[in-house]
Protein backbone atom coordinates (compact mmCIF):
# COMPACT_ATOMS: atom_id res chain seq x y z
CA UNK A 1 0.00 0.00 0.00
CA UNK A 2 1.36 3.45 -0.91
CA UNK A 3 2.48 5.68 1.88
CA UNK A 4 0.57 8.95 1.70
CA UNK A 5 1.97 10.75 4.75
CA UNK A 6 5.33 10.25 6.36
CA UNK A 7 6.34 12.58 9.17
CA UNK A 8 9.47 11.98 11.21
CA UNK A 9 10.36 14.25 14.12
CA UNK A 10 8.51 17.01 12.28
CA UNK A 11 8.81 20.45 13.82
CA UNK A 12 6.78 23.50 12.81
CA UNK A 13 6.71 26.98 14.25
CA UNK A 14 4.09 29.69 14.46
CA UNK A 15 6.17 32.74 15.17
CA UNK A 16 8.73 31.32 17.59
CA UNK A 17 6.32 28.87 19.19
CA UNK A 18 6.76 25.21 18.23
CA UNK A 19 3.23 24.05 17.43
CA UNK A 20 4.69 20.76 16.25
CA UNK A 21 7.56 19.49 18.33
CA UNK A 22 8.54 16.13 16.89
CA UNK A 23 5.62 14.46 15.19
CA UNK A 24 5.95 10.96 13.81
CA UNK A 25 3.09 9.87 11.61
CA UNK A 26 2.58 7.29 8.91
CA UNK A 27 -0.60 7.20 6.87
CA UNK A 28 -1.14 4.79 4.02
CA UNK A 29 -3.42 4.91 1.01
CA UNK A 30 -7.18 4.47 1.58
CA UNK A 31 -6.81 4.71 5.36
CA UNK A 32 -9.08 6.75 7.59
CA UNK A 33 -6.93 8.00 10.46
CA UNK A 34 -8.29 9.89 13.43
CA UNK A 35 -6.07 12.36 15.26
CA UNK A 36 -7.21 12.70 18.84
CA UNK A 37 -5.97 14.87 21.64
CA UNK A 38 -6.85 17.74 23.88
CA UNK A 39 -7.39 21.29 22.65
CA UNK A 40 -4.05 22.76 21.62
CA UNK A 41 -2.42 19.35 21.31
CA UNK A 42 -1.40 20.02 17.70
CA UNK A 43 -4.05 18.18 15.66
CA UNK A 44 -4.91 21.19 13.50
CA UNK A 45 -1.23 21.98 13.06
CA UNK A 46 -0.55 18.46 11.80
CA UNK A 47 -3.37 18.80 9.28
CA UNK A 48 -2.14 22.23 8.16
CA UNK A 49 1.42 20.93 7.84
CA UNK A 50 0.21 18.01 5.72
CA UNK A 51 -1.68 20.49 3.51
CA UNK A 52 1.51 22.48 2.98
CA UNK A 53 0.10 25.51 4.78
CA UNK A 54 2.34 25.26 7.84
CA UNK A 55 6.02 24.98 7.07
CA UNK A 56 7.90 22.05 8.57
CA UNK A 57 11.24 23.52 9.56
CA UNK A 58 12.94 20.42 10.93
CA UNK A 59 12.59 16.68 10.59
CA UNK A 60 11.12 14.87 7.63
CA UNK A 61 7.76 15.55 6.04
CA UNK A 62 6.65 13.78 2.90
CA UNK A 63 3.03 13.93 1.69
CA UNK A 64 1.94 12.20 -1.52
CA UNK A 65 5.59 11.87 -2.45
CA UNK A 66 6.26 15.60 -2.07
CA UNK A 67 8.97 16.70 0.36
CA UNK A 68 7.24 19.46 2.29
CA UNK A 69 10.49 20.78 3.73
CA UNK A 70 11.58 21.64 0.18
CA UNK A 71 8.38 22.85 -1.51
CA UNK A 72 5.18 22.76 0.54
CA UNK A 73 3.24 24.44 -2.29
CA UNK A 74 3.72 21.45 -4.58
CA UNK A 75 1.29 19.26 -2.67
CA UNK A 76 -1.58 21.72 -2.22
CA UNK A 77 -3.60 20.97 -5.33
CA UNK A 78 -3.66 17.29 -4.40
CA UNK A 79 -4.89 17.91 -0.87
CA UNK A 80 -8.20 19.19 0.47
CA UNK A 81 -8.40 20.77 3.91
CA UNK A 82 -11.71 21.35 5.63
CA UNK A 83 -10.68 23.57 8.52
CA UNK A 84 -12.43 25.54 11.23
CA UNK A 85 -12.85 28.39 8.75
CA UNK A 86 -14.92 27.76 5.64
CA UNK A 87 -12.69 29.72 3.21
CA UNK A 88 -15.78 31.09 1.47
CA UNK A 89 -16.46 34.55 0.07
CA UNK A 90 -19.54 36.07 1.71
CA UNK A 91 -20.55 38.13 -1.33
CA UNK A 92 -20.41 35.25 -3.78
CA UNK A 93 -23.21 32.75 -4.18
CA UNK A 94 -22.94 29.13 -3.13
CA UNK A 95 -22.43 28.01 -6.74
CA UNK A 96 -19.87 30.77 -7.40
CA UNK A 97 -17.85 29.78 -4.34
CA UNK A 98 -17.75 26.10 -5.19
CA UNK A 99 -17.02 26.83 -8.86
CA UNK A 100 -14.13 29.10 -7.94
CA UNK A 101 -12.67 26.54 -5.53
CA UNK A 102 -12.90 23.80 -8.15
CA UNK A 103 -11.54 25.82 -11.06
CA UNK A 104 -8.75 27.33 -8.95
CA UNK A 105 -7.62 23.82 -8.09
CA UNK A 106 -7.64 22.89 -11.77
CA UNK A 107 -10.89 20.92 -11.66
CA UNK A 108 -13.80 20.80 -14.07
CA UNK A 109 -16.88 22.99 -13.73
CA UNK A 110 -19.03 19.93 -14.44
CA UNK A 111 -18.20 18.50 -11.01
CA UNK A 112 -19.88 21.40 -9.21
CA UNK A 113 -23.56 20.57 -9.69
CA UNK A 114 -23.32 16.91 -8.57
CA UNK A 115 -21.41 17.99 -5.46
CA UNK A 116 -24.03 20.61 -4.59
CA UNK A 117 -26.76 18.03 -5.08
CA UNK A 118 -24.91 15.52 -2.93
CA UNK A 119 -24.73 18.01 -0.06
CA UNK A 120 -28.38 18.95 -0.42
CA UNK A 121 -27.58 22.43 -1.70
CA UNK A 122 -30.42 22.49 -4.17
CA UNK A 123 -33.34 24.70 -5.09
CA UNK A 124 -32.57 28.36 -4.45
CA UNK A 125 -29.48 27.67 -2.36
CA UNK A 126 -26.92 27.58 -5.23
CA UNK A 127 -27.91 31.15 -6.17
CA UNK A 128 -27.92 32.38 -2.56
CA UNK A 129 -25.12 34.57 -1.22
CA UNK A 130 -23.03 32.73 1.34
CA UNK A 131 -23.43 35.65 3.76
CA UNK A 132 -27.12 34.72 4.07
CA UNK A 133 -26.45 31.12 5.10
CA UNK A 134 -26.40 29.53 8.54
CA UNK A 135 -23.17 28.12 9.97
CA UNK A 136 -24.24 24.58 9.10
CA UNK A 137 -25.10 25.52 5.54
CA UNK A 138 -21.74 27.26 5.13
CA UNK A 139 -20.09 24.10 6.35
CA UNK A 140 -21.96 22.12 3.72
CA UNK A 141 -20.83 24.54 1.01
CA UNK A 142 -17.25 24.00 2.14
CA UNK A 143 -17.80 20.26 2.02
CA UNK A 144 -19.34 20.57 -1.45
CA UNK A 145 -16.18 22.31 -2.64
CA UNK A 146 -14.11 19.47 -1.20
CA UNK A 147 -16.33 16.82 -2.80
CA UNK A 148 -16.24 18.60 -6.15
CA UNK A 149 -12.46 18.89 -6.02
CA UNK A 150 -12.11 15.28 -4.84
CA UNK A 151 -8.43 15.55 -3.86
CA UNK A 152 -6.24 12.54 -3.19
CA UNK A 153 -5.88 13.35 0.50
CA UNK A 154 -8.76 14.69 2.60
CA UNK A 155 -7.76 16.53 5.75
CA UNK A 156 -10.79 17.18 7.93
CA UNK A 157 -10.58 19.34 11.04
CA UNK A 158 -13.64 18.89 13.24
CA UNK A 159 -15.72 18.03 10.18
CA UNK A 160 -18.88 17.29 12.15
CA UNK A 161 -18.92 20.69 13.85
CA UNK A 162 -21.98 22.76 13.01
CA UNK A 163 -23.77 19.95 11.14
CA UNK A 164 -27.09 18.45 12.20
CA UNK A 165 -27.50 14.70 12.64
CA UNK A 166 -28.67 14.14 9.07
CA UNK A 167 -25.70 15.91 7.57
CA UNK A 168 -23.27 14.28 9.99
CA UNK A 169 -24.46 10.95 8.62
CA UNK A 170 -24.05 12.34 5.12
CA UNK A 171 -20.50 13.46 5.90
CA UNK A 172 -19.62 10.01 7.24
CA UNK A 173 -20.97 8.51 4.05
CA UNK A 174 -18.92 10.91 1.94
CA UNK A 175 -15.76 9.97 3.82
CA UNK A 176 -16.41 6.24 3.39
CA UNK A 177 -17.15 6.75 -0.32
CA UNK A 178 -13.96 8.73 -0.74
CA UNK A 179 -11.93 5.86 0.70
CA UNK A 180 -13.68 3.38 -1.57
CA UNK A 181 -12.61 5.60 -4.51
CA UNK A 182 -9.00 5.34 -3.34
CA UNK A 183 -8.75 8.55 -1.35
CA UNK A 184 -7.08 8.83 2.04
CA UNK A 185 -8.64 10.65 4.97
CA UNK A 186 -7.09 12.13 8.10
CA UNK A 187 -9.48 13.76 10.49
CA UNK A 188 -9.34 15.46 13.85
CA UNK A 189 -12.53 15.38 15.83
CA UNK A 190 -13.90 15.64 19.32
CA UNK A 191 -17.02 13.79 18.20
CA UNK A 192 -15.60 10.59 19.65
CA UNK A 193 -18.54 8.33 18.97
CA UNK A 194 -18.77 9.18 15.28
CA UNK A 195 -15.07 9.61 14.64
CA UNK A 196 -14.12 6.30 16.29
CA UNK A 197 -16.75 4.50 14.27
CA UNK A 198 -15.39 6.09 11.10
CA UNK A 199 -11.67 5.71 11.64
CA UNK A 200 -9.60 2.68 10.90
CA UNK A 201 -6.80 3.85 13.15
CA UNK A 202 -6.33 6.39 15.90
CA UNK A 203 -3.26 8.48 16.58
CA UNK A 204 -3.01 10.41 19.79
CA UNK A 205 -1.41 13.84 19.73
CA UNK A 206 -0.19 15.65 22.83
CA UNK A 207 2.00 18.71 23.27
CA UNK A 208 2.62 19.10 19.56
CA UNK A 209 3.98 15.59 19.28
CA UNK A 210 2.89 11.99 18.90
CA UNK A 211 4.28 10.44 22.08
CA UNK A 212 5.77 6.95 21.71
CA UNK A 213 3.48 4.08 22.47
CA UNK A 214 4.29 3.01 26.07
CA UNK A 215 2.77 -0.41 25.54
CA UNK A 216 1.77 -2.64 22.64
CA UNK A 217 -1.58 -1.62 21.21
CA UNK A 218 -4.39 -3.19 23.09
CA UNK A 219 -8.12 -3.42 22.69
CA UNK A 220 -9.79 -0.09 22.17
CA UNK A 221 -13.26 0.51 23.49
CA UNK A 222 -15.35 1.89 20.70
CA UNK A 223 -18.68 3.42 21.62
CA UNK A 224 -21.35 1.21 20.23
CA UNK A 225 -18.87 -1.23 18.73
CA UNK A 226 -17.48 -2.94 21.80
CA UNK A 227 -13.82 -3.76 22.32
CA UNK A 228 -11.85 -4.37 19.15
CA UNK A 229 -8.60 -6.23 18.87
CA UNK A 230 -5.56 -4.34 17.60
CA UNK A 231 -4.25 -4.93 14.14
CA UNK A 232 -7.33 -5.09 12.00
CA UNK A 233 -7.44 -2.14 9.65
CA UNK A 234 -10.92 -1.75 8.34
CA UNK A 235 -12.62 1.57 7.73
CA UNK A 236 -15.49 1.95 10.06
CA UNK A 237 -13.83 0.40 13.06
CA UNK A 238 -11.12 2.10 15.08
CA UNK A 239 -8.61 -0.66 15.35
CA UNK A 240 -5.30 0.57 16.63
CA UNK A 241 -3.95 3.15 18.96
CA UNK A 242 -0.68 4.22 17.44
CA UNK A 243 0.38 6.21 20.45
CA UNK A 244 -1.00 7.19 23.76
CA UNK A 245 -0.47 10.49 25.53
Amino acid at each position, binding site marked *: MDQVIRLRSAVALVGRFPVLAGVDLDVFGTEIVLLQGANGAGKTSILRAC*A*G*LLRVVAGEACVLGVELTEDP*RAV*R*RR*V*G*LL*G*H*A*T*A*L*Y*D*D*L*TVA*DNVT*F*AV*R*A*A*GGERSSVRPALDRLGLTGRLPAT*RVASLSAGQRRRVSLAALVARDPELWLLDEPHAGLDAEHRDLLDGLVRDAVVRGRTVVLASHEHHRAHALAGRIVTVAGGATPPDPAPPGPLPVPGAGAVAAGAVAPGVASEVTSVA
Partner: protein
Amino acid sequence: MWRDALLVAGKDLRVEARSRVTTNQVAPYALIVLFVFGFAFDQDQYVLTHIGPGLFWVAVLLCTLLAVQRSFSLEAADGARDGLRLSGLDGGGIFLGKAAAIAAQLVALEAVLAFGIVVLFGAHLAHPLLLLTTCALATVGLAAAGTVYGVMSAGLRVRETLLPLLLLPVAAPIVLGATQAWLAAVGLVTGSGWRWLTLLGAFAAMYLTIGVLAFGTLLEEA
Protein backbone atom coordinates in the same frame (compact mmCIF):
# COMPACT_ATOMS: atom_id res chain seq x y z
CA MET B 1 -0.38 32.16 -14.94
CA TRP B 2 -2.76 33.98 -17.31
CA ARG B 3 -5.56 31.50 -16.65
CA ASP B 4 -5.08 31.94 -12.91
CA ALA B 5 -5.07 35.72 -13.34
CA LEU B 6 -8.36 35.63 -15.24
CA LEU B 7 -9.90 33.38 -12.61
CA VAL B 8 -8.88 35.62 -9.71
CA ALA B 9 -9.83 38.83 -11.51
CA GLY B 10 -13.21 37.37 -12.37
CA LYS B 11 -13.77 36.34 -8.77
CA ASP B 12 -12.79 39.73 -7.34
CA LEU B 13 -14.91 41.62 -9.87
CA ARG B 14 -17.86 39.33 -9.22
CA VAL B 15 -17.53 40.04 -5.50
CA GLU B 16 -17.51 43.77 -6.24
CA ALA B 17 -20.47 43.50 -8.59
CA ARG B 18 -22.48 41.68 -5.91
CA SER B 19 -21.41 43.81 -2.94
CA ARG B 20 -21.50 47.12 -4.89
CA VAL B 21 -18.97 48.65 -2.52
CA THR B 22 -17.22 50.47 -5.35
CA THR B 23 -20.36 51.99 -6.82
CA ASN B 24 -22.22 52.69 -3.58
CA GLN B 25 -19.35 53.75 -1.33
CA VAL B 26 -16.04 54.38 -3.07
CA ALA B 27 -17.40 56.42 -5.99
CA PRO B 28 -19.41 58.79 -3.73
CA TYR B 29 -16.35 59.04 -1.49
CA ALA B 30 -14.23 60.08 -4.48
CA LEU B 31 -16.71 62.80 -5.41
CA ILE B 32 -16.84 64.01 -1.79
CA VAL B 33 -13.06 64.31 -1.84
CA LEU B 34 -13.35 66.55 -4.91
CA PHE B 35 -16.03 68.68 -3.21
CA VAL B 36 -14.06 69.05 0.02
CA PHE B 37 -10.85 70.00 -1.78
CA GLY B 38 -12.84 72.37 -3.95
CA PHE B 39 -14.17 74.17 -0.88
CA ALA B 40 -10.76 74.15 0.80
CA PHE B 41 -9.13 75.82 -2.21
CA ASP B 42 -11.77 78.49 -2.58
CA GLN B 43 -14.14 78.70 -5.51
CA ASP B 44 -11.83 80.74 -7.69
CA GLN B 45 -12.18 79.22 -11.16
CA TYR B 46 -8.56 79.95 -12.05
CA VAL B 47 -7.27 78.10 -9.00
CA LEU B 48 -9.64 75.20 -9.44
CA THR B 49 -8.72 74.80 -13.10
CA HIS B 50 -5.04 74.64 -12.22
CA ILE B 51 -5.35 72.28 -9.27
CA GLY B 52 -8.01 70.07 -10.92
CA PRO B 53 -5.60 67.49 -12.39
CA GLY B 54 -3.71 67.24 -9.09
CA LEU B 55 -6.92 66.79 -7.14
CA PHE B 56 -8.03 64.16 -9.62
CA TRP B 57 -4.95 62.03 -9.00
CA VAL B 58 -5.01 62.57 -5.23
CA ALA B 59 -8.61 61.35 -5.25
CA VAL B 60 -7.62 58.37 -7.41
CA LEU B 61 -4.80 57.58 -4.98
CA LEU B 62 -7.17 57.66 -2.00
CA CYS B 63 -9.60 55.42 -3.88
CA THR B 64 -6.72 53.06 -4.63
CA LEU B 65 -6.15 52.67 -0.89
CA LEU B 66 -9.79 51.74 -0.38
CA ALA B 67 -9.82 49.32 -3.32
CA VAL B 68 -6.64 47.60 -2.14
CA GLN B 69 -7.87 47.37 1.45
CA ARG B 70 -11.10 45.87 0.19
CA SER B 71 -9.33 43.43 -2.11
CA PHE B 72 -7.27 41.97 0.72
CA SER B 73 -9.94 42.12 3.41
CA LEU B 74 -11.90 39.67 1.22
CA GLU B 75 -9.09 37.19 1.60
CA ALA B 76 -8.71 37.79 5.33
CA ALA B 77 -12.30 36.80 6.13
CA ASP B 78 -13.09 33.24 7.20
CA GLY B 79 -9.83 31.70 6.06
CA ALA B 80 -10.24 32.65 2.40
CA ARG B 81 -6.51 33.34 2.11
CA ASP B 82 -5.75 29.76 3.14
CA GLY B 83 -8.24 28.60 0.54
CA LEU B 84 -6.43 30.65 -2.07
CA ARG B 85 -3.06 29.25 -0.99
CA LEU B 86 -4.40 25.71 -0.92
CA SER B 87 -5.80 26.01 -4.44
CA GLY B 88 -2.27 25.96 -5.80
CA LEU B 89 -2.85 29.03 -7.96
CA ASP B 90 0.29 30.58 -9.36
CA GLY B 91 1.47 33.50 -7.21
CA GLY B 92 2.10 35.69 -10.25
CA GLY B 93 -1.35 34.82 -11.55
CA ILE B 94 -3.01 35.80 -8.28
CA PHE B 95 -1.08 39.07 -8.33
CA LEU B 96 -2.09 39.89 -11.90
CA GLY B 97 -5.69 38.95 -11.23
CA LYS B 98 -6.01 41.07 -8.11
CA ALA B 99 -4.18 43.99 -9.72
CA ALA B 100 -6.41 43.75 -12.82
CA ALA B 101 -9.57 43.79 -10.69
CA ILE B 102 -8.31 46.83 -8.78
CA ALA B 103 -7.34 48.53 -12.05
CA ALA B 104 -10.81 47.89 -13.51
CA GLN B 105 -12.41 49.53 -10.47
CA LEU B 106 -10.00 52.47 -10.71
CA VAL B 107 -10.85 53.01 -14.38
CA ALA B 108 -14.54 53.26 -13.48
CA LEU B 109 -13.74 55.66 -10.65
CA GLU B 110 -11.52 57.76 -12.91
CA ALA B 111 -14.43 58.17 -15.33
CA VAL B 112 -16.62 59.42 -12.48
CA LEU B 113 -13.87 61.72 -11.20
CA ALA B 114 -13.11 63.10 -14.67
CA PHE B 115 -16.76 63.98 -15.05
CA GLY B 116 -16.61 65.58 -11.60
CA ILE B 117 -13.65 67.85 -12.25
CA VAL B 118 -15.02 68.93 -15.62
CA VAL B 119 -18.39 69.83 -14.12
CA LEU B 120 -17.22 71.17 -10.76
CA PHE B 121 -13.87 72.73 -11.61
CA GLY B 122 -14.31 73.50 -15.29
CA ALA B 123 -11.20 71.47 -16.09
CA HIS B 124 -10.20 71.10 -19.74
CA LEU B 125 -9.81 67.70 -21.36
CA ALA B 126 -7.54 68.13 -24.38
CA HIS B 127 -5.19 65.73 -26.20
CA PRO B 128 -7.32 62.67 -25.42
CA LEU B 129 -4.63 60.23 -26.54
CA LEU B 130 -2.13 61.64 -24.07
CA LEU B 131 -4.69 61.77 -21.28
CA LEU B 132 -5.88 58.22 -21.90
CA THR B 133 -2.31 56.89 -22.06
CA THR B 134 -1.51 58.73 -18.84
CA CYS B 135 -4.56 57.26 -17.14
CA ALA B 136 -3.74 53.76 -18.38
CA LEU B 137 -0.12 53.79 -17.20
CA ALA B 138 -0.88 55.50 -13.89
CA THR B 139 -3.75 53.10 -13.19
CA VAL B 140 -1.60 50.04 -13.89
CA GLY B 141 1.17 51.47 -11.70
CA LEU B 142 -1.17 52.25 -8.80
CA ALA B 143 -2.92 48.89 -9.02
CA ALA B 144 0.37 46.97 -9.19
CA ALA B 145 2.04 48.87 -6.35
CA GLY B 146 -1.16 48.73 -4.29
CA THR B 147 -1.37 44.96 -4.73
CA VAL B 148 2.25 44.46 -3.72
CA TYR B 149 1.92 46.57 -0.57
CA GLY B 150 -1.56 45.19 0.07
CA VAL B 151 -0.29 41.65 0.40
CA MET B 152 2.69 42.81 2.47
CA SER B 153 0.36 44.31 5.05
CA ALA B 154 -2.44 41.76 4.67
CA GLY B 155 -1.52 39.45 7.51
CA LEU B 156 -0.83 42.16 10.06
CA ARG B 157 -3.25 43.41 12.67
CA VAL B 158 -2.28 46.98 11.80
CA ARG B 159 -2.91 46.54 8.07
CA GLU B 160 -5.51 49.31 7.85
CA THR B 161 -3.04 51.93 9.01
CA LEU B 162 0.10 50.36 7.61
CA LEU B 163 -1.06 50.25 3.99
CA PRO B 164 -1.41 54.05 3.58
CA LEU B 165 1.91 54.51 5.32
CA LEU B 166 3.58 52.18 2.82
CA LEU B 167 1.71 53.09 -0.35
CA LEU B 168 1.28 56.86 -0.24
CA PRO B 169 5.00 57.76 -0.33
CA VAL B 170 5.71 55.11 -2.93
CA ALA B 171 2.89 56.33 -5.18
CA ALA B 172 4.08 59.94 -5.08
CA PRO B 173 5.93 59.64 -8.42
CA ILE B 174 2.70 58.48 -10.08
CA VAL B 175 0.73 61.43 -8.76
CA LEU B 176 3.52 63.76 -9.85
CA GLY B 177 3.96 62.25 -13.32
CA ALA B 178 0.28 61.88 -14.07
CA THR B 179 -0.53 65.40 -12.88
CA GLN B 180 2.27 66.95 -14.91
CA ALA B 181 1.30 64.98 -18.01
CA TRP B 182 -2.28 66.19 -17.67
CA LEU B 183 -1.24 69.83 -17.06
CA ALA B 184 1.01 69.67 -20.11
CA ALA B 185 -1.78 68.14 -22.17
CA VAL B 186 -4.08 71.09 -21.45
CA GLY B 187 -1.30 73.67 -21.81
CA LEU B 188 -1.10 74.73 -18.16
CA VAL B 189 2.62 73.99 -18.00
CA THR B 190 5.27 74.21 -20.68
CA GLY B 191 6.90 71.15 -22.21
CA SER B 192 5.65 67.89 -23.61
CA GLY B 193 3.43 65.70 -21.49
CA TRP B 194 4.76 62.58 -23.18
CA ARG B 195 8.07 62.68 -21.31
CA TRP B 196 6.19 62.05 -18.05
CA LEU B 197 4.86 58.84 -19.48
CA THR B 198 8.36 57.40 -19.30
CA LEU B 199 8.24 57.79 -15.53
CA LEU B 200 4.75 56.30 -15.33
CA GLY B 201 5.67 53.41 -17.63
CA ALA B 202 8.85 52.63 -15.72
CA PHE B 203 6.97 52.67 -12.41
CA ALA B 204 4.25 50.37 -13.72
CA ALA B 205 6.77 47.97 -15.26
CA MET B 206 8.82 47.86 -12.06
CA TYR B 207 5.88 47.01 -9.81
CA LEU B 208 4.40 44.54 -12.28
CA THR B 209 7.72 42.72 -12.33
CA ILE B 210 8.09 42.81 -8.54
CA GLY B 211 4.53 41.60 -8.11
CA VAL B 212 4.75 38.69 -10.55
CA LEU B 213 8.03 37.52 -9.05
CA ALA B 214 7.40 38.12 -5.35
CA PHE B 215 3.66 37.91 -4.75
CA GLY B 216 3.65 34.15 -4.12
CA THR B 217 6.30 34.46 -1.44
CA LEU B 218 4.66 37.53 0.08
CA LEU B 219 1.33 35.67 0.23
CA GLU B 220 3.02 32.81 2.08
CA GLU B 221 4.44 35.19 4.65
CA ALA B 222 1.24 37.21 5.05
